[in-house]
């Protein structure tokens, strides 16, 4: 087996692992958001105490949840795109175009990860108003989510180098 094929196999396994772990976290975070905001209402109307931290905590959970889930959407090819032009191309050309597209996405993700990391350092000694944790934890959601998406994009690239097809199942699986 060639080196690229070996790397590809490892990347495929890794990317599936990332997806599965992400899904567990997404499920847990979203469920936690429901419980926290519901407790906030119950607290106000039934028990007459207020939860000062509920809004802030659920908001950060939401941002983390959304950014963790976006790599799953990328893996499944679910991100909304305009496919009118792609549909008139032959399958082979579509594959090449898709290959190029992954580099464009890679560029953007790298920028967000690099400067997102800088942001974390800038805000790390500020604390959040209610929870009192470092703002860095909140800000980390965006670059972390992009890092996970980067894993999926690099997997796509290696998959193309090995098998010369990547987009077929990605376009088919789009719901």
């Amino acid at each position, binding site marked *: 087996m060639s080196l690229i094929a070996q790397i590809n196999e490892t990347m495929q396994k890794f990317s599936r692992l990332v997806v599965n772990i992400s899904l567990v976290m997404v499920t847990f975070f979203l469920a936690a958001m*429901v419980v926290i905001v519901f407790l906030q209402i119950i607290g106000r109307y039934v028990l007459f105490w207020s939860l000062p931290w509920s809004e802030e905590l659920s908001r950060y959970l939401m941002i983390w949840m959304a950014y963790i889930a976006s790599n799953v959407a990328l893996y499944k090819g679910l991100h909304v795109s*305009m496919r009118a032009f792609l549909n008139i191309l032959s399958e082979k050309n579509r594959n090449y175009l898709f290959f190029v597209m992954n580099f464009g996405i890679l560029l953007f993700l790298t920028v967000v990860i690099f400067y997102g990391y800088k942001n974390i350092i800038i805000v790390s000694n500020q604390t959040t108003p209610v929870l009192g944790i470092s703002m860095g934890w909140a800000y980390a959601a965006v670059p972390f989510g992009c890092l996970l998406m980067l894993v999926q994009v690099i997997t796509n690239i290696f998959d193309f180098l090995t098998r010369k097809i990547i987009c077929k199942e990605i376009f088919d699986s789009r719901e």
Partner: protein
Amino acid sequence: MIKILVATFVFIFALLIGFPIAFVIGLSSFSSIALDNIPLTVIPQRMFSGIDVFVVMAVPFFILTGEIMNRGGVSQRLIRFAEVIVGRVKGGLAYSNIIASMFFGGISGAAIADVSAIGSVMIPAMEKSGYKRSFSSAITACSSVVGPIIPPSIPAVLYAMNVSGVSVGALFVAGIVPGIMLGGGLMLVCALMANKENFPKREKVVTAKEFFKILFEAFLALIAPLIIIGGIIFGIFTPTEASVIAVVYSVIIASLIYRQLSLRDIIESLKQAGITTSILFLVVSTAYVMAYVFSIKGVAPSMASFIVGIVGENPFLFLLMVNILLLVIGTFMEFSAVIIVLGPMLAPIAVQLGIDPLHFGVIFIVNLAIGLTTPPLGVCLFATSGIANISLEQLSKAVLPFLLVKVMVLFLITYLPFFSLYIPELLNII
């Protein structure tokens, strides 16, 4: 000037070759920011702060409610209820498709959810009883757009978040009549076609006992929107809290009363809702980067003077122009990005010309909803053609008569503010 051209070129090129919309917006904004030598830390910063808002949490919760209701057998019951009401009429299934979409729109806030919930059941059922597949798919796609207009509505949450002077509650309520009008317009098309195409009708009569059972089960689902909207406009909950009440309510009726929701279903719903949210939020996040680029480039004032230069101080011409602009943009751009970038630019001009901000919000949302089914690029057309296994060309052709009526309804809503403002005025919330 060259910098603007580069960013525009990146945008068009990336859009055409099929980049995910979030990256189309992200890359073109990145190119503009990089060329202007602005620190690039602003990109992740905006992507964070854009969704660091409590109100926006209503979006994942409304999506989750739709998922749970779907898995818990709510959509089936809504469809059956609609069929029981109008099934005996000629073309009954076509009407029930539309009515079911309107019911479902009162629970979910997005159109795509509606397409899969109703289309997967109704298209095969309609085909079996003798409708053409292209017609059944067209009516599913077209009726799904009432979902984001009839409250609760995800676009309304985003609009109220980004445009000052409009509340989520008022925008929800203002969408009720336009949503019903749109549904009514679609039914009118079916009525005109019913005799010519000789649509089938149901022969079997439903017994009173069956009818009351179906009515009761559907009723439990249909009071959910009343709780959501009532709670918001009477100030009992914030929109976000109302959306959580909707989640909890849907879990209770689907698991305890319909007994169709297992723990497995709840977990699946959470996963799916999380993924759907992330797709939307990635677009929303990057749209805030683009909105930032537009603001430092001073696009809003130059656009305002450009528009006023063309239409003068005439609100009629202005609304005509806005309608055309949004119908075109709405076909290829994700609705949330249009709301975030163009909403805050166009709404102040409208207010200056004496248009009610709430009325303008309704016009904005109806336009974008219609854009979801405009051939050849509308998102709901893609979704429907996938579910029904029908080519986009056939579907686009079948959609045309409905599209015509939708545009006619849009113009009624645009030029007669009464339809949007009557209920909010009645409830005294503007």
